[in-house]
């Protein structure tokens, strides 16, 4: 059970979109923006408020890669592994970041809740390959070394 303040926030977000079934996705997007993840309790709560079955809401939330039931770090790093980035060596960058942050395919977020590392299929910036984003800020033409440096920078910040 979450604290009441979470539900109040959810109520506010629901009110801003209207309590209609069609508003499910924008509402849970806003909740995820607010908390950097989608607390499962709030998904159930929103479903109930909108008159949607919990299982249906879960179905929607798991369909989209973007929604996460796990709390995410302060910095969300998304490494593009689309075709263009992949052939321009995005995997070595990913591997460097895994070792730099002590993460793996199964463990996406650091213990200190500073970093979350994800791969995405294409960021639509193939001209800048290999590319990664940190909280939606784009870093073009990356290398493993540049990635290490970026982490140091962010840690210092």
């Amino acid at each position: 059970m979450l604290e009441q303040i979470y539900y109040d926030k959810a109520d506010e977000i629901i009110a801003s979109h209207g309590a209609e079934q069609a508003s499910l996705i924008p509402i849970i997007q806003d909740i995820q923006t607010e908390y950097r993840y989608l607390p499962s309790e709030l998904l159930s709560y929103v479903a109930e408020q909108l008159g949607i079955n919990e299982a249906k809401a879960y179905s929607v939330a798991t369909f989209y890669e973007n929604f996460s039931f796990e709390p995410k770090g302060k910095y969300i790093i998304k490494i593009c592994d689309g075709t263009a980035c992949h052939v321009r060596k995005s995997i070595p960058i990913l591997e460097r970041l895994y070792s730099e942050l002590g993460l793996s395919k199964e463990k996406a977020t650091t213990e200190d809740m500073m970093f979350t590392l994800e791969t995405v299929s294409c960021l639509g910036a193939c001209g800048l390959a290999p590319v990664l984003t940190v909280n939606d800020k784009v870093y073009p033409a990356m290398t493993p070394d540049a990635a290490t440096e970026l982490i140091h920078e962010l840690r210092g910040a």
Partner: protein
Amino acid sequence: MSYMTINNRKVTFTNEKNVLSIIRKSGIDLPTFCYHSELSTYGACRMCVVEDERGRVFASCSETPRDGMTIYTNTPKLQHHRKMILELLLASHCRDCTTCAKNGVCTLQKLSRQLGVREVRFENNKKQLPLDLTSECIIRDPNKCILCGDCVRTCDEIQGLGILDFAFRGSKMQVTPAFNKDLAETDCVGCGQCRAVCPTGAITLKPNVSDVWKILSDKNTRVVVQIAPAVRVAIGDKFGIKKGENALGRLVAALRRIGFAEVYDTNFGADLTVMEESKEFLERLEADESLPLFTSCCPAWVTFCEKKYPEFRRNISSCRSPQEMFGALIKEEARMNAEKDTRKTMVVSIMPCTAKKAEIKRPEHFTDGEQDVDYVLTTTEITRMIQEAGIDLAQVQPEAMDMPFGIASGAGAIFGVTGGVSEAVLRRLVDSNRAEDLEAISFTGVRGVDSIKEATIQLGDREVKIAVVNGLQSAAEVLDKMKAGEAYYDFVEVMACKRGCIAGGGQPVPIGPRTKKARLDGIYKIDNMAQIKLSNQNPIVTTVYEGILKGKEHKLLHNSTEDVSHV
């Protein structure tokens, strides 16, 4: 009248909702996994694909019929597609057919044989997932799921619960409750309708077959068995007996051969229910409180009401269900005779229902600390036991039930179909044996297959309004209307399964529209043939009220108010 050409033969059609139903009407049994006429069209399995004269391939279930269409149902291209789909389904399926609970009634197995799939060229690289064994009623094995969505749509559209849905996407997709919760943690009511539509072994019954074999083999145990109304018209299904035929006599004989000590009729329990429920209804009418009275025979409905509409909890009749009344009676009799008969008495119910398995474990269904009914076997499980014992039901000479609880009225028999409980109660209230009166009751509107039926009957100077509901989605509709003050009823009968218990979650599958019709007709035929039509005219009912039940009616036949406060 329009026509289309199917495989070079002209076929006429009128208002069929899709091409598939016209093809099937024309005598071609096009295979499907995900199509059910009572559910929305999903179009996922692609088994019903057909080809038109331009070579376009489309799913016939999702195509609106057009005048002058030309289609082919069995071209080499289609054969190739269907076989490929099956091969791919089989590739990621756990193929332990010989030990699967669905062996012999599995649609995947049947179609693989029918369409001649002899080889699976692809490797199964699907991750094995754990089984969900937490429900008292059903077992979910996600590894056998083919994602047809039949259970998802049944639970949502028919039962209005939506416990199961798809989760994740692509190759990771699975059918699961929200957050992959165990069924026991959800609002699942155990109706088993998902199991009844599941084409594979992904959702099966929670079996008690070995438990019952065990008690049957114990010489110090007297195992008493009762048979629910809807079982007798379905038990013949797997023995080549005509659909809907009353095979009660054969079943009784088979049960004796299996080793049950005494074989009785739950219809008798239903007669007791009619007595008690009518009495309770009259009392509530007189006091004009706690109306409407909701029937309590259907455990899936009772659970549904408690979980989803707790504000109506007090409206549910305090009467135990027929199986529970009967169980309590047998156990009480055994307690009274404990000195004469030192054997332990255990009660087994044969039910069309999966939810009954959960009902017997509810705390209010214990009398003096003893469980009233020890095991519930569904029709499907008793079919298996009869087969295991090597008995061919079709060859057995019918036998009569044991006395005294083997006599039941026609009113008890019709408990197995929607409207039956209401009709039985009305017969008791009108209390007339005249053919015209019985016919008048049957024409009040309680009969029929509509989801929500309304009936009105004059009782003295009061006009009594009745609603008869089948399907929990429709029950929710009625309750919402009542809450909003848009509808008023004095008596509401709800059966969770469409058409009532004859299509219960534990009945032999498949349960298509024709099977349902045959079973429904079978039940009314039993009533038509019954010499006693009214529960209060059942002589054994009078005997037990003057005997075992005397002074204990409430203890044995009702749930006390404290019992219901636990919800």
